Each structure stands twice: as C-alpha cells, then as structure tokens.
C-alpha cells in the first residue's frame, strides 16, 4: 500500500483557504442579517455570497483531490473507534462544505436575488421566487451553519487533544512543510 505521512501542498492550501474563507463568511453572515437596509448591507450580502460560492468551488476541487489521492492514514496509536469518529466528522464536514453554500444559493434564488459572482458572473437561479420557500431555506441555511460551527469546534478540540494530550502528529500533516516537526 502506498503510504503517505502528510497531505500534499495542494490539499494543505485548499484546507486552509477554505478555513480562512469560512472564518470570514460565518461571522459576516451572522452580522449582516440583522442590519438595517443600507448600501453597506447590500455590499456585505454580496461579499458573503461571493465567498460562499468560492468555498463551493474550492470544496469541489478538494473532493476531486480526495478521489485522486490517498490521504495520509491515521497513526495506529489512535483507537479504531476514534478513527471511525474522525472519519464521520470529516465526512460531515465535507458534506457541509457543499450543503452550506448551496443552501445559501437556493435561499437567495427563492428570495428573488440572483447571485452575481464578483459582480460580473450571473449564476443561474436554481429556484423560482417563492417567499415561503425562501424563509424555509433561510432556516435551513442557518441550521446547517450551526452544525458546521459545532463540528468545527469539535475539529479544533480534537486537534488540541491530539497535540497536547496524545502528542501525536495529526496537526502537522495539515501544516505547510517548513513549519512541521
């Protein structure tokens, strides 16, 4: 079997880029939705949507990477049960990388606002305008985000545990080469 110890640079770049974008888009979404209508609000909504679609594209690239590469196996020191837990959490995180932006895109369509990526590329509306559906999708988009938040907290907590309690090597696999070890 082909064994690798680290993620390659493409995977690492995609991971951290997506993480960074989510760390911007999440609080932005939280903040902007309660704002009174203003030019700033309209701008923030657009930026949020652009970031979301970017995450969607990067997530697609990541999945393609996953299907064409073997990710490093978890060290044997980690129990089978924990390994399974890790795979489940990672699997749901991958799903959410798609589900969160897509639910936002659908919500935007249902509310009657086309998404125009970076203000230049109009994306197709996946749904017709429908007020009730728009509201439902808003709830779905928010709920998925709370699940995402929960899993990211779990993801980081696991990382801290592995780093400082188990003293194994799971964090450095996802860090740029120079900073590992």
């Amino acid at each position, binding site marked *: 079997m082909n064994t690798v110890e680290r993620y390659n640079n493409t995977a690492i770049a995609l991971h951290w880029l997506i993480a960074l974008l989510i760390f911007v888009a999440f609080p932005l979404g939280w903040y902007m939705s309660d704002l009174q209508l203003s030019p700033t609000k*309209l701008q923030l909504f657009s930026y949020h949507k652009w970031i979301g679609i970017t995450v969607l594209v990067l997530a697609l690239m990541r999945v393609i990477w996953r299907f064409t590469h073997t990710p490093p196996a978890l060290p044997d020191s980690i129990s089978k049960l924990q390994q399974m837990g890790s795979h489940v959490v990672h699997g749901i995180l991958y799903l959410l990388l798609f589900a969160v932006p897509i639910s936002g895109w659908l919500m935007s369509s249902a509310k009657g606002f086309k998404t*125009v990526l970076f*203000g230049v590329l109009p994306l197709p509306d996946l749904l017709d305008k429908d007020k009730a559906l728009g509201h439902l999708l808003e709830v779905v988009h928010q709920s998925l985000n709370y699940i995402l938040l929960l899993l990211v907290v779990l993801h980081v907590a696991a990382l801290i545990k592995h780093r400082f309690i188990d003293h194994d090597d799971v964090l450095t696999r996802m860090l740029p080469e120079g900073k590992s070890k």
Partner: protein
Amino acid sequence: MNFMRCSLLLSLLLICNQVSALEFNQVQTSESSVTFGYKQMNVPLEGKFNKFSSTMVFDPAKMANAQARLEIDVTSIDTGSAEGDDAVVGKLWFNAKAFPTASFVSTGLKAVGGNRFEAAGKLTIKGKTLNVIAPVTFQATGTRGIFEGGFTINRLDYAIGEGEWTDLGTVANEIQIKFHIVVNASPAKK
C-alpha cells in the same frame, strides 16, 4: 389589374375608415402593468407598482388629439424585497408621505413608422418634473388596444435615494421603467 388595384385601394380606405372611427379611451387597469428594472450590486431586480390609474385618448386618425395620463401610487411599490418596500416609501427614497403620487402626463405623440410612436411627456416623481420621451408600440385587435413601451430614468435626477443611497456603486442610477397599458376603444364621438 386595374380592378385589383382599385379594390385594394378601396379596402385600404375601408380599413382606414374603420380605424379612424375607433377612439381608444377606456384603460383596463387590471390588465395593465407598470414595472421597473434596476440593479443592486450588479444584481438585476424587477419591481412593479400595484396601484395606478390612467386615462388615455388615442385615435390613430387624430394623432394631435392623443392624450395619456398615468398616476402611480408610490406606496403600492413592490421592489422585489419586503425590506426594500418598507425602505423606499421613506424620506430618502420616494418620501411617499409628502409625495404619494408619481405621474406622467403626455405632451405629444409622434408616429415614427409602422406601429411605433414616440410619446413625449412630463414625468413627475417626488415633486420634481422632467421631460421624458418614451418609445411606444401600439397594437390593436378589434376594439382592444395595447400600448407597450419603456424608458430609462436616472434615479438621482429625481432625488430617489438620498444620503448614503446617492452612492451608485450599490444601487445603480439607471431605472428601466416599462409599461403595458390595455385600452379598449369605443366609437368616436362625431
């Protein structure tokens, strides 16, 4: 040949006669619409006015007598978003309390060939009146006529969107107004 030409001429005359006997003057508000398009962060949006009234007098044979008047209840606006609807009746946008009505009053109608016309008129929004010219088409089937046309205004010319909203980077200046007015004919008074 000569007979053919004669009969063609005759039938044309008859058609003309028939048309000139019709005066389109009963606006069917429920079948008509006044809509508008605008862009917000380059996102195209459609809106409409749900309440308006219109009077029209149009006899294709008496162009000089043509008259059109359109009065729009600005509080009936549907901007495409509920939040937008609440905002635009406010002071910075239409200031509907002080200026509840927007109106178009024609000053002249010019035939430009075929079923195409140019309607000149005075457009009043938010207490400001400016001259506009709208290309219009007129299509009649029997006694039912349809005026269709549109024109573009710059919202800042009428101070629609003051204060922070004068920023054109978010809500664009150009507003495309489109109208579709169904007007029925009654026999012209002699």
